[in-house]
């Protein structure tokens, strides 16, 4: 017994140490970024000032005064919120139909949806910009971003919701039918309350993906609908002259999502490990 206890204790300590090392490696760039955001651009590039410097808020003030941080942030909120809502509005009925009224093609449709994620985004860059700019005239609008972000996230959202819905016993939905509920009632009265945990974590993940999306948000916007990703991109200088400024912008862009993630940590972990319905 003693030996077992000892080895497991040693195992625990080494595992903990390992976890800490990994966490620190992951955390370091963010820590470094936050630190840099309080340095002047001049200090930022000097290695000897890594930890010892005179902190300044100049970058942050500069950002809100000169770059209109709040407009970018508002755009990020608008596009992410509406894209998430739209994705759920389409994804919930879709996953519901596939989970409770499967046809022979259901499995194939699910696979096909996931396979669209394998298409390299760069491959459709030209048609996307050309069509939206010259044909549809929706380039650089919230509408376009909402649609694009929704489409990007739909496969994963449907897939996740499908997995959650599958865990609901079929009889419960059938009991609902016998009790006189129509299809919308089944979704509203039975499905959503029962899969609430799964839907919430799916929504959260979708929101985070939308917020962090950079490839399309940078390329399909100029000013009107530009999000925080675009703001970061705009402050990127190849020579690395404005590290302080860039760090401040980046920290302010990831800040809200980190806070959100922090508060919803439990929900997210529970949701992502599945099996949270019963």
């Amino acid at each position, binding site marked *: 017994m003693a030996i077992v206890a000892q080895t497991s204790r040693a195992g625990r300590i080494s595992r903990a140490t390992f976890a800490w090392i990994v966490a620190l490696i992951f955390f370091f760039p963010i820590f470094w970024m936050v630190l840099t955001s309080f340095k002047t651009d001049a200090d930022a590039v000097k290695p000897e000032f890594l930890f010892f410097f005179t902190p300044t808020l100049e970058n942050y003030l500069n950002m809100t005064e000169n770059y209109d941080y709040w407009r970018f942030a508002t755009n990020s909120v608008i596009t992410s919120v509406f894209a998430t809502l739209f994705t759920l509005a389409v994804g919930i009925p879709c996953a519901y139909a596939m989970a409770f009224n499967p046809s022979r093609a259901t499995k194939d449709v699910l696979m096909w949806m996931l396979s669209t994620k394998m298409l390299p985004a760069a491959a459709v860059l030209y048609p996307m910009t050309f069509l939206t700019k010259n044909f549809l005239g929706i380039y650089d609008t919230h509408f376009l971003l909402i649609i694009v972000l929704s489409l990007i996230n739909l496969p994963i959202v449907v897939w996740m919701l499908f997995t959650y819905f599958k865990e609901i*016993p079929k*009889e*419960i939905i*059938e*009991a*609902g*039918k*016998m*009790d*006189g*509920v*129509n299809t919308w*009632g089944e979704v509203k*009265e*039975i499905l959503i*309350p*029962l899969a609430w945990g799964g839907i919430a974590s799916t929504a959260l993940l979708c929101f985070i993906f939308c917020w962090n999306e950079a490839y399309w948000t940078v390329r399909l916007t100029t000013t009107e609908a530009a999000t925080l990703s675009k703001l970061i991109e705009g402050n990127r200088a190849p020579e690395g002259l404005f590290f302080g400024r860039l760090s401040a912008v980046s920290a302010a862009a990831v800040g809200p999502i980190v806070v959100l993630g922090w508060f919803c940590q439990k929900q997210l972990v529970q949701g992502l490990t599945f099996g949270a319905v019963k």
Partner: protein
Amino acid sequence: MGRIVLEQVTKSFGETQVIPPLDLTIEDGEFAVFVGPSGCGKSTLLRLIAGLEDTTSGKVIIDGEDVTQVSPSKRGLAMVFQTYALYPHMTVRKNIAFPMRMAGIPEDEQNKKIAAAAESLNLTDYLDRKPGQLSGGQRQRVAIGRAIVRDPSAFLFDEPLSNLDAALRVGMRLEISEMHERMKTTMIYVTHDQVEAMTMANKIVVLQAGNIEQVGSPLDLYREPRNLFVAGFIGSPKMNFIEGDEAAKHGAHTIGIRPEHIEVSSDAGTWSGVVGVSEHLGSDTFFHVHDTGLAETITVRAGGEVSFKHGDRIHLTPRQDVIHKFGPDGLRL
């Protein structure tokens, strides 16, 4: 009202036909039991009536109205599932109220009905619990309560008692029979337990591989089984079947004699054999008799006080008036 008619109904899942063309009428107020071995299509048939499965062809008619294309929610039937299928996120009260809420019944009327149902099902103390906090028997009562309050034209039960222990099962069986006596509403009850079928039904429908083997009252089926399958399925323990010379004496291919229709004696009788296993139930004793030269085992019922040992030679005399005769095609002669 609840007269249910199936006309030439069939059901296939993909290529496999589970229900071949089938006609059946269940009269208003009847307690019909579908009974048959596992996989014979009982649940499928019930679900076709409920509308939870679409018919492949044929018609389902309720009270003269063709409901084949009508959704389950509009057929006015209530169903009780084997797995209870309660809404886990609602309290017992909300579960029972749910169908009424969906039907738009005013709240004070809902409350009256809930109170009455809870009273008759002994659920009054549990109304504010969630289903997860109830025992199996209580859950099944909630499911029945949820079915009662909406005054359906017929109740459908799919093996509602098979998840309960034996004692509870007998109790609930009586409660459901009682409920039927009181309400006189049509009930269709699926089970694979022929004792449930015999004790509860006005009308038993014996199914095998989707075919109706016989329809009739419990005693009809017991006294005049139409074929070997029904003869073997109805009655417990099973009817003894004897083929060969002994059957030929009665001018049949197979004869059947129930265990309770054979006299046992230690000194004289028509047949004789050696006692194998004896099962003492107190009121009755069942002897499994070997080496009779008729069939591998002959089961006989004797009184509870009759006692033979393993290996004893005993004599058997069948009651001539209740010997069932079957032809080579398995049909009753």
